[in-house]
């Protein structure tokens, strides 16, 4: 039984990782087709020399950084407040935003923006993408912060207020420093979900705000491209490192 389970688990891990490993290996393939012809860095070189991809990466970075900064700050505040006293309607709303299919969030935000644009000379662009990303990444921050606060000792806060600190000072000088690893972890998760998003982004992005995932999607649609393999390998490794960092921070005391 044990041996059967181990074999089964091994097969499951192979299933999870093999496609990504194969993709990574073939990003070094000198042939354009799926047969191995020899080792090369050419595709990585051409990714770095591709001006459109560079612009897409910059767009994705700007969006992810701004959305992460906003979500992390306001999500941390909300998580703290929800820990102090429950607010079921807000918690439910956040979970609803987690459950809602991405495509629905995307089209309803598109409907909102199109409707709002009737009242001003606004267009879809980076700003609409950033707003969308803030709304869908907030829940991740709140979940991470709340999870950490569950193991937080309230006596630390009580001690500070007994020593004369007001509520804000307690939060600023006691809670925030203790929560810092969780806040950073939340930020990293926010960054990864934002940087990766295609479905919602593609609906609310304007002509001048094409992101990296939108470009990868367009290339994936066309067919196999070794450039996409190289790009994918880099993004997967990059995001993987961020996630490992986040899970380490989440656990650290």
């Amino acid at each position, binding site marked *: 039984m*044990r041996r059967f*389970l*181990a074999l*089964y*688990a091994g097969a*499951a891990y192979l299933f*999870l*990782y093999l*496609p*990504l490993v*194969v*993709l990574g290996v073939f990003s070094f393939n000198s042939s354009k*087709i*799926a047969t191995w012809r020899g080792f090369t860095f050419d595709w990585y070189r051409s990714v770095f020399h591709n001006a459109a991809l560079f612009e897409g990466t910059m767009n994705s970075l700007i969006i992810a950084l701004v959305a992460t900064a906003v979500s992390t700050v306001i999500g941390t*505040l*909300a998580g703290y*407040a929800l820990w102090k*006293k429950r*607010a079921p309607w*807000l918690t439910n709303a*956040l979970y*609803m935003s987690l*459950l*809602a*299919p991405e*495509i*629905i*969030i995307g*089209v*309803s*935000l*598109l*409907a*909102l923006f199109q*409707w709002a644009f009737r009242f001003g000379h606004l267009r879809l662009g980076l700003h609409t993408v950033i707003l969308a990303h*803030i*709304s869908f990444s*907030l829940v991740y921050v*709140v979940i991470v912060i709340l999870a950490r606060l569950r193991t937080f000792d309230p006596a630390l806060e009580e001690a500070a207020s007994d020593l004369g600190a007001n*509520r*804000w000072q307690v*939060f600023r000088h006691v809670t925030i420093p203790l929560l810092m690893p969780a806040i950073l972890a939340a930020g990293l*998760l926010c960054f*990864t979900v934002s940087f*990766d998003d*295609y479905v919602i982004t593609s609906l609310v992005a304007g002509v001048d705000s094409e992101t990296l*995932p939108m470009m*990868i*999607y367009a290339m*994936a*649609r066309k*067919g*196999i491209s070794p450039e996409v393999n190289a790009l*994918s390998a880099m*993004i*997967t490794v990059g*995001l*993987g490192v961020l*996630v*490992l960092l986040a899970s380490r921070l989440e656990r650290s005391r």
Partner: protein
Amino acid sequence: MRLRSIFLAPTALVMVLLFFVPLLIALAYSLLTRGPYGGVFPPWTIENYQRALDPLYLAILWRSVWLAAVSTALCLFMGFPLALYIARSARHKTLLLNLVMLPFWTSSLIRTYAWMFLLRDTGLVNTLLEGLHIVRAPLPLLFNDGAVVLGLVYGFLPFMVLPLYATLEKLDPALLDAAFDLGATPWVALRRVVVPLSKPGIAAGCVLVFIPCLGAYLTPDLMGGGKTVMLGNLVQSQFTTARDWPFGAAISLLLMLLVLLVARALAKQGEKLL
């Protein structure tokens, strides 16, 4: 407590303005009429919801539910032994669990692309099979229902493993010992002891996988190649190529309702779980 309101206000504002208001606008759109060149106009009507009952769209609903159910079943089939293995392993539990979660946090688009790279007509699998003269023409591995299910299972397997692990980890090993002492074979112990005791985890995992599968858009779009249409793709096409926003909005809201109904089942299960 004033500080608390200040802390909650920004998040509440975002949720209201960027989640509920958009849904309300979608609701309004779904009750309006499509203009000759797209857009939404009066008069108010429930025609879009009546149209959703057309056999053509009911077939898409049925297909979405079916593909989501098959994917969920396969996730359970793959995830249960995996979760059991992790829960029963003496060391490295956290590491093994993180290894399951890690791909989920990296790019979903890239993970789908990775499968496309393997399964295309000119992909690695077909190239290998042809090179070894096992097949003469490339097998149609991509752009069908099977490929969509594969993509969904690959994408959402972690959602099954996590709750299963949570219940299996709490399972008292003494119960298993008792079963074995009473002469149960491993298979009988699994079927009569482990599975019944992990029902809450099974239910939670199934709902957690079923919901995102039901509303999936990217996987059927890329791996179904536009041939396998699920509800998510129907919504997307109404908002883009068909330019029928009112009908797209109506389908969105029906899908959202379906998701919430399934989620309520989870919430009830969750109460039992905790």
